[in-house]
């Protein structure tokens, strides 16, 4: 049964397909050494971001960790700029200074990809603090991994977010593993969402392979935030199909386990709703995919043809102060 509009399903399909194809291309480009350093793919987890975007507004804020390509795309940063950032080109959304892990766009209210596990949790609370301080109605969505909830920063931030009723939605994207470490090897409390209960934070578990359930949970949380009733903690259960980063052979899990999640693929679930309800034909969906293919091809050409930042750019964007006296000898 379809609970959302036809347009919503088509939008989800488009959005998630863009994320998926974009990252498949990124993996290929990494293999060709066009993209360097650490590169963490989101493939399999797309419904978590897609189900957020269908709830929040352009004025709302997003912040996440280093697995950030999909978040950046969904916030509306053009694929060209995300791809150019992966290349390290001057035309990237962080001018080639951030790379895969550090996508940012002030214009699109994307407060970035962050590399220190858990570091973004207090930042997310702080972004929400600023909106509340100014009397705004915005909410901040702050993503973290299942590994990140083991950082002390989470507990300090959760407590303050609760006592000050900050309009922030903390989302644990529980993909089962932090690098090679499964959740069950790091805790006695397999229900990560229960961590919020220690602070009386409204908290729950959500099926992260399904856009509809993510949307519903986020909608409730956003409503709470906008009404001034404070934060929410959602443990969204999902899965990454690929290794932790490009260098991880992922020997710590079985093929069967990966297969089991692929059977619940979020994009295929949406495709099924669309086709079952005759919201569009397979040919229509193929046309969408083709369009996405062209966007990605364009993003690659754009990146290829863009310049590297000049070496002198190392000294820009370190301080706002224009003539900061860097030590040079």
């Amino acid at each position: 049964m379809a609970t959302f509009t036809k347009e919503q399903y088509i939008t989800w399909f488009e959005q998630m397909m863009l994320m998926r194809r974009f990252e498949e291309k990124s993996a290929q480009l990494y293999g060709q050494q066009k993209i360097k350093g650490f590169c963490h793919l989101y493939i399999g987890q797309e419904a978590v971001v897609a189900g957020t975007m269908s709830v929040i507004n352009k004025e709302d804020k997003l912040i996440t960790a280093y697995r950030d390509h999909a978040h950046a795309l969904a916030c509306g940063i053009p694929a060209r700029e995300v791809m150019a950032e992966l290349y390290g080109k001057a035309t990237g959304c962080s001018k080639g200074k951030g790379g895969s892990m550090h996508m940012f766009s002030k214009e699109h209210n994307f407060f970035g990809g962050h590399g220190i596990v858990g570091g973004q949790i207090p930042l997310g609370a702080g972004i929400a603090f600023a909106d509340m301080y100014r009397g705004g109605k915005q909410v901040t969505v702050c993503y973290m991994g299942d590994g990140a909830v083991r950082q002390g920063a989470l507990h300090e931030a959760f407590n303050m977010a609760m006592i000050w009723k900050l309009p922030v939605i903390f989302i644990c994207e529980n993909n089962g593993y932090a690098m090679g470490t499964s959740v069950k090897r790091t805790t006695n409390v397999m229900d990560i969402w229960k961590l919020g209960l220690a602070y009386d934070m409204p908290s729950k578990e959500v099926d992260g392979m399904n856009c509809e359930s993510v949307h519903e949970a986020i909608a409730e949380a956003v409503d709470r935030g906008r009404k001034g009733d404070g934060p929410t903690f959602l443990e969204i259960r999902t899965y990454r199909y690929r290794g932790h980063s490009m260098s991880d052979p992922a020997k710590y899990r079985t093929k069967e386990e990966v297969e089991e999640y692929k059977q619940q693929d979020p994009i295929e679930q949406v495709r099924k709703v669309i086709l079952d309800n005759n919201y569009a034909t397979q040919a229509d969906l193929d046309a969408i995919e083709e369009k996405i293919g062209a966007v990605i091809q364009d993003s690659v050409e754009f990146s290829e043809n863009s310049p590297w930042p000049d070496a002198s750019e190392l000294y820009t964007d370190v301080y706002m102060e224009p003539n900061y006296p860097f030590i040079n000898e």
Partner: protein
Amino acid sequence: MRVIQFREALREAMNEEMRRDNDVFLMGEEVAEYNGAYKVSQGMLDEFGEKRIIDTPIAELGFAGIGVGAAMNGLRPIIEFMTFNFSLVAIDQVINAAAKMYQMSGGQFNIPMVFRGPTGSAGQLGAQHSQAFENWYANCPGLKVVVPSNPYDAKGLLKTAIRDNDPVIFMESEQMYGDKGEVPEEEYLIPIGKADIKREGTDVTIVSFGKIMKVALAAAEELAAENISVEVIDLRTVRPIDYDTVIESVKKTNRLIIVEEAWPLASISTEITYMVQKRAFDYLDAPITRITTADTPLGYAPTFVAEFLPSVPKVVKAVKDVLYK
């Protein structure tokens, strides 16, 4: 002599010390079942079991502190940071607990432990993953800081660090783990606090340590082809610093260049420069020169990496400058 990798040398050091002393254990992220993020601890879980090779959650502050507590109560922990960038999450326990405990307790609680892992940049990893904190830790009394540059030194120094009764920060590099070098089968120890002259020379002294020794040695080799004789000193330890070896060398060559992966302000280079001008002022025939990283965070693009780091051309040029060539 047999040749092994840097990571194998570290592993041998830990294995030998763990066989020798049951109080030694290894704790950190991905050290056990995954065999180490950079495969340093490969096979150690199989040999020592999960009681002594311990995987942790991503909770640096917690497990660093658990290490310090265990050390206060008589064990000899080796705490691995996946990289030293993440040690910042734990630095309170390193500086406020490990480094202070012996004095605060009036000499009752010593902290016989090692914090180890890779330091510095390792290609295009962006600003949060490209930092060198040798001088930060070296600044703190109560700690010792060891930064080996080859497999032989790594093994001998790590064994000494594990046996040391004070907290030792032991800093490696992703870009050294695959390096190969001669390491004897027989047991040996290398003292902490002793520099090593890696190449003798007469015209200029270059002082460096850790991964950047590769740059220093390559530059010396290139300069030798132009008949410039460079003495290259590997500090091996940046707290304490073996000033005597440096000053002896400067008295011979009368010229000093320090090469280091660190931001320039308050770097190890700055410190050595102070001591050399104080103790060998009259021997200097040129101003002391340092080659550090740029005074900025290291961004992702490849153009930044070359600009940021010490390199062979930069060192060669500096040598010629101090020789007024």
